[in-house]
């Protein structure tokens, strides 16, 4: 398929990028291109100008800032998979990345592009929400930071304004935390129909801290605060699991799509949750974090 016709700009700096965006309110940013090129081919979007930010090396850094890991928006999924500092500080990321597409797509696809795409089935958004991540948005008017849990307004929609660029993802360090991802898909390379990303602290079989990100279970990636509250502070027995499954059912609002029906998503969501929780806690508190 030939993409829709567009004018192509490849600025060399963030400042130049913001200037191009200010002059072209309908412009679209090209990061790794693994979603945008499909949209340009199918004419789902037809911008006058495509702004390639592949030349912005300033968006490729991974660095520690006090108790946070800050990952540049243009860091590819493949580099995240290989980075030992990422695996240590944000253990959920490498676990979830295994579910994202394939080697070739992960070599091009970026963390920032994936989060900004706002796919309700976006695995990385679920991981970001479970991690308590926020995104940094730059524009010619300045910078603001938005929690990923508040980034989305609907399917493929975010709070990003015209002229804003998602420059980095800031994640609290969770060294030593337990992490797991329960995900159901028709086939491994297909979109996630129900994904539950879990980041937890566990002490003697009891989940002392827990955050959950949901994928494919609403019109956007969602947090699950009430489900997490049903588990926090309790030993992970059948009773706690049953309570969590019930809370989850009340917190999700899955949609029908060609990939899977809302009913099916609702039916498998608690299975994904239970798998994630049991895997995160492990056999007992003595075992080391999985993944």
């Amino acid at each position, binding site marked *: 398929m*030939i993409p829709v016709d567009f*004018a192509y700009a490849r*600025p060399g700096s963030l400042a130049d990028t913001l200037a191009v965006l200010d002059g072209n309110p309908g412009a679209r940013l090209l990061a790794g291109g693994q979603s945008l090129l499909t949209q340009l081919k199918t004419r789902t979007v037809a911008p006058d100008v495509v702004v390639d930010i592949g030349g912005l090396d300033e968006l490729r850094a991974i660095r520690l800032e006090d108790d946070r890991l800050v990952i540049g928006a243009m860091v590819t999924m493949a580099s995240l998979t290989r980075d030992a500092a990422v695996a240590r500080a944000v253990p959920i990321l490498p676990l979830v990345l295994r579910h994202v597409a394939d080697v070739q797509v992960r070599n091009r696809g970026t963390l920032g592009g994936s989060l900004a795409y706002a796919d309700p089935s976006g695995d990385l958004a679920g991981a970001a929400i479970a991690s308590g991540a926020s995104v940094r948005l730059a524009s010619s008017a300045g910078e603001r930071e938005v929690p990923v849990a508040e980034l989305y307004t609907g399917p493929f929609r975010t709070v990003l304004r015209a002229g804003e660029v998602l420059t980095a993802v800031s994640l609290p360090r969770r060294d030593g935390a337990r992490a797991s991802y329960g995900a159901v898909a028709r086939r491994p390379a297909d979109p996630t129909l129900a994904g539950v990303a879990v980041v937890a602290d566990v002490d003697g079989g009891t989940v002392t801290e827990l955050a959950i990100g949901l994928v494919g279970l609403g019109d956007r990636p969602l947090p699950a605060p009430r489900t997490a509250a049903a588990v926090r502070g309790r030993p992970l027995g059948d009773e706690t699991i049953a309570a969590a499954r019930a809370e989850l059912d009340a917190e999700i609002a899955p949609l029908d799509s060609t990939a899977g029906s809302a009913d099916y998503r609702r039916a498998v969501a608690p299975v994904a949750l239970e798998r994630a929780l049991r895997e995160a806690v492990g056999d007992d508190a003595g075992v080391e974090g999985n993944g």
Partner: protein
Amino acid sequence: MTDLGTRTATPTVRVNGEDVTGEVPARMLLVHYLRENAGRTGVHVGCDSGNCGACTVLLDGAPVKSCMVLAAQASGREVTTVDGLDAPCVPALRRAFVEHAAIQCGYCTPGMLTNATALLRDDPHPDEDAIRAALKGNLCMCTGYQQIVDAVAAAAAEGEEASR
């Protein structure tokens, strides 16, 4: 004056060691650039939508789907197509694909060989799970995959033998 974008691009892409340059529409995909401008028709156009992996090439050494990259994005970078693969494992991979009947219609073969070459370069002794995970983005409608997995495993084993 800020560059507000142009409808054409003039990428220079190093393809199998030779610079290929020329003015093309900005929307031209790398796969078409490689076939039409560089004459590298070993790169196949399969689904043209980022799913099948037939168009896989190495971009600065990393396997990517060339239908999901603009030619302009590859400017100043190095592309290796199936006919430019020169890693030590390549002769063994080619032989193993033939011996294990990992080729039937041949459409997926350039992508399979290219991706398998990157796999064996980075992980010379992959187990079956690692082979299947690495080739997840390459679809084959003929073989049922087992022959391809067997061929990659055989090439890896041959490499192991040779390095002893």
